[in-house]
């Protein structure tokens, strides 16, 4: 064939198009790494031990459900060194907390609904005396029936926990005609899944300090969204938000577990009652597990229909979600579960009903995956089952049904850059690098090896019409260093480096010429929560926009100095350089000094606020429910002892398309951690409770994976540019966990021939499943 002759001319230069050319894409060490390593940086617990003058202890309910008849505090007040005992009567404000519905009393006035409910607050001169005081508070209860499971909440004669009953709310999706499609399907598979209650189990327990002085209440305690915390604390305590300052200390993990207010309002109340004193409070592990919200346990009933060639035709899904005693972020988790019910697959007919069910268990709220995690267990479990029924290869069945760029997900949103297939192929490709993907079965008859896979998608950001905005400020300080101000909190995931690297890259600076001021309501603007895998995309964009503004100023300053048009100048490695004239340059430090004299501000703010559209009430459809979607695929290989039920993960491959890895090492860290957490959820982690009382509220009995349970995670990082992300970046936080769980479960099915549907797959559950043919 004749090729048209093309002269070998390079494309014309576009000097103002700026791909990352500096520190973005480099695995720069953590800016806070040295102080974290030496211990110089202060976590909440360091503040607790450092400056406290008075200590707070909370009296928590002894019953999962009861009417509080009386609270007698006189004996507690009489305890030596006890400085004050407070109840709901002493709350100056609304006394309400809760992220979406504000339905949860800070100090209970009438009814306790779970064993973490707080009844009174004791302030004393030492932690020990505060505890003695708390023990001396006498509470008289009239016990009420305890609803401890979804089943008992839905029972016909169930005690109604709220006036409206035990159903908190719901969410539905209607698309096409499911019943007709199922009736016409060549194959139909039905299964139900039970996922468990999971604790966030971050190592850095809740601890912090507060002080009320000069009409300002300052609270330093770890959260995930300082500005929202300020709003909620203000309402609960009857203050105006401008009289509250929230400062985030260094924080060791969150995973959604710090989204709900934890100790902040107690600290604030005590500080208001004892002005001028530094108040301290901390939870120990037992109290943290008892008091704090958990991941929703869900019952998922799933029916999937397909043509005989494997094309999916219909999905009918009903979900019951244990919301626990209060709403927390439950309404949003339900919505996210619904919009992720069919994952990355093309399904023309969909019907989803999600019901939130109140119980007297711990409230359930945000946790890494946020409803999408439970649904991935279900839809990937269904794909494995369907493949068996169709006698089709699991991988081929998935590839056949995965959405491609331009296709729509369950909510009807068309996905611009859908790289599910690429992720799946990359993960399988990696798996096949060993022995062509053929597993060698062990010699021992009781050991079986198998592998499983998952492909997942995840809508980034709050989405669904919820206002989602990030703000940032970039300025040069007097020493000539660039300072990034962001309201976003670094909970250990590396937000500080992310914003610093974005700003440094944009301004052509080395990382050590950037400093970050983060998560202090007095110094930074609202930038939304560190959740929903959103900070790189949202705050990264806001920082980039602010830095671009400063960059324009720098280029103007440099233009006059170098006698060039700004388009002919680039900022790189600390210098403004003439692009076409080698050697013509000026140090950015110099420019900053000059510019300040010449009246340039070099101090710019920006916000990033891409809108989303609320999903339709009746159909759940929305042309743009999320700003962008993330894709990932995992392959997991396990060894199962079919006599004892023990499962060992031998290999785990995780591929995620992050758009652009701002810091590749940090991305691999997130993926590895997510897989570890996913293995924990698949095999061992489970909050076990009976009648609302948690039985394993410590790390001896709440089983987290150890290094012996997690193999070296083989990370594949794909970088298909996101059209809207900073330098093309999307994010990475939640998807690694979401992908890990179903891949491990699929591997158990492959190894044993029996598919698990109850989590976690402890040795006993797997054994029982193999005895009965199901682990139900």
């Amino acid at each position: 064939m004749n090729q048209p002759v093309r002269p070998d001319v390079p494309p014309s230069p576009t000097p103002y198009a700026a791909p990352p050319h500096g520190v973005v894409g480099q695995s720069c060490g953590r800016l806070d790494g040295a102080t974290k390593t030496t211990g110089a940086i202060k976590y909440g617990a360091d503040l607790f031990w450092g400056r406290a003058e008075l200590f707070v202890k909370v009296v928590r309910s002894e019953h999962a459900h009861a009417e509080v008849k009386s609270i007698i505090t006189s004996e507690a007040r009489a305890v030596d060194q006890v400085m004050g005992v407070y109840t709901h009567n002493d709350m100056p404000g609304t006394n309400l907390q809760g992220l979406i519905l504000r339905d949860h009393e800070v100090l209970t006035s009438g009814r306790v609904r779970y064993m973490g409910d707080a009844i009174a607050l004791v302030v004393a001169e030492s932690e020990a005396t505060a505890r003695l005081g708390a023990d001396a508070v006498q509470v008289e209860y009239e016990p009420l029936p305890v609803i401890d499971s979804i089943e008992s909440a839905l029972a016909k004669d169930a005690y109604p926990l709220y006036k409206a009953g035990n159903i908190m709310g719901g969410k539905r999706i209607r698309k096409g005609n499911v019943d007709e499609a199922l009736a016409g399907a060549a194959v139909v598979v039905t299964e139900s899944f039970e996922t468990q209650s999971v604790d966030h189990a971050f190592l850095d327990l809740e601890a912090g300090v507060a002080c009320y002085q000069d009409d300002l209440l300052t609270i330093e305690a770890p959260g995930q969204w300082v500005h929202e915390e300020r709003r909620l604390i203000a309402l609960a305590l009857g203050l105006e938000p401008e009289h509250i300052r929230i400062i985030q200390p260094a924080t060791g993990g969150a995973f959604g577990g710090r989204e709900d207010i934890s100790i902040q309002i107690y600290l604030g109340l005590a500080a208001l009652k004892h002005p001028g004193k530094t108040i301290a409070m901390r939870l120990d592990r037992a109290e943290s597990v008892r008091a704090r919200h958990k991941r929703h346990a869900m019952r998922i009933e799933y029916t999937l229909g397909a043509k005989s060639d494997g094309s999916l035709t219909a999905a009918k899904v009903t979900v019951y979600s244990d919301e626990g005693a209060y709403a927390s972020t439950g309404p949003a988790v339900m919505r996210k579960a619904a919009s992720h019910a069919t994952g990355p697959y093309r399904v023309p007919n969909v019907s989803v009903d999600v019901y939130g069910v109140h119980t007297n268990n711990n409230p359930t709220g945000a946790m890494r995956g946020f409803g999408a995690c439970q649904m991935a267990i279900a839809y990937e479990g269904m794909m494995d089952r369907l493949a068996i029924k169709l006698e089709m290869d699991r991988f081929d069945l998935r590839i056949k049904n995965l959405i491609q760029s331009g296709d729509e997900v369950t909510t009807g949103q068309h996905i611009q850059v859908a790289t599910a297939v690429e992720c799946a192929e990359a993960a399988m490709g990696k798996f096949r690098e060993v022995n062509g993907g053929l597993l060698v079965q062990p010699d021992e008859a009781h050991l079986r090896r198998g592998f499983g896979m998952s492909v997942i998608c995840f809508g980034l950001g709050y989405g669904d019409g919820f206002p989602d905005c990030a703000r940032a400020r970039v300025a040069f300080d007097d020493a000539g260093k660039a300072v990034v101000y962001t309201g976003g909190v670094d909970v250990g995931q590396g937000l500080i480096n992310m914003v610093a690297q974005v700003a440094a890259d944009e301004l052509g600076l080395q990382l050590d010429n950037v400093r970050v001021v983060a998560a202090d309501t007095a110094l930074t603007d609202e930038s939304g929560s560190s959740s929903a895998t959103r900070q790189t995309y949202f705050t990264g964009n806001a920082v980039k926009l602010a830095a671009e503004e400063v960059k324009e100023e720098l280029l103007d300053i440099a233009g006059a100095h170098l006698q060039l048009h700004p388009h002919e100048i680039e900022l790189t490695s600390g210098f403004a350089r003439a692009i076409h004239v080698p050697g013509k340059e000026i140090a950015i430090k110099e420019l900053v000094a000059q510019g300040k004299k010449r009246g340039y501000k070099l101090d710019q703010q920006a916000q990033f606020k891409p809108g989303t559209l609320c999903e339709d009430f009746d159909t759940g459809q929305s042309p743009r429910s999320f700003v962008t979607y993330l894709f990932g695929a995992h392959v997991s290989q396990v060894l199962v002892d079919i006599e004892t039920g023990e499962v060992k993960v031998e290999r785990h491959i995780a591929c995620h398309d992050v758009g652009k890895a701002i810091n590749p090492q940090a991305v691999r860290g997130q993926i590895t951690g997510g897989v570890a957490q996913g293995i924990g959820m698949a095999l061992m982690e489970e909050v076990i409770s009976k009648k609302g009382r948690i039985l394993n509220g410590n790390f001896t009995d709440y089983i987290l994976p150890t290094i012996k349970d997690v193999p070296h995670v083989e990370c594949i990082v794909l970088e298909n540019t996101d059209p809207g992300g900073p330098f093309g970046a999307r994010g990475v936080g939640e998807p690694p966990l979401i992908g890990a769980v179903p891949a491990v479960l699929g591997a158990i099915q492959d190894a044993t021939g029996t598919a698990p549907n109850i989590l976690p797959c402890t040795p006993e559950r797997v054994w029982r499943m193999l005895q009965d043919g199901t682990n139900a």
Partner: protein
Amino acid sequence: MFYRPDTFAAALRLKADHAAAIKPISGGTDLVVGLNRGQSLGVDVLDLTAAKDYRRIDHADGSLILSGGTTFAQLEQLDIACLARAAASVGGPQIRNRGTIAGNLATASPAGDGSVALLALDAEVELAHADRGTRWLRLIDYFEDYRQTALGDDELISHVRIPTPSALQASAWYKIGKRGAVNISLVCAAAARFLDGRICLAFGSVAPIPMRAVQTEKLLQGQPLTGALLHQAAQAASAEVKPIDDWRASADYRKAMCAVLARRVLEQLQTDDERQMP
């Protein structure tokens, strides 16, 4: 008061004088857990770790004599499969560096891995008193009831005696837990076969005490370990243990696992000839 004598004799004196009013501490890996949970000891503490020779392992005519303060890290190095492997399965490296055999026997948890391995080795424990001297007890007589032992208020565990590798033909160990390390046994089993033909079989977490499966052992005495016998023994072990249901595992599962583990550990004791037999 916190006592830290530098000889074991001085420790024995203190224990004899204060009896229940003083609590010995070895590695602290059981005791400190309680303190961390806010339980107070309420009594004085007798730290044994400074006592000379509290960590020694000696050979004496056909036996190994382990001092009470022998750590799991030390036991891991021994050439006795069931004990070394049981020790290696305990906690994580930190716990194995601190935790001691005396502590394991004194705590007498039904899930005590060291205790189960020692039971299968038909070990003896030496209980010492400053004035009355010492007495040796077979471990099978030492564990009495849930966390109750023959150890007197005024005594200390001074030594444990086990047959040397030369008296042992083979031993084996298996533990089931929910994860790969820092793992409480859901069920564990140990077995040993001695040169005189005796076989001992012990289980953890299936009775109020670390238990020897004496009924099952009877089936095995003097018999070649054929496939058929192993099968029979597995059934017998499962019938003999008395596990309870708790949220860690059900009694059903534990019983079933005793059969599986009995067969596994006994298989490892088989000679090559026996392996060929049906």
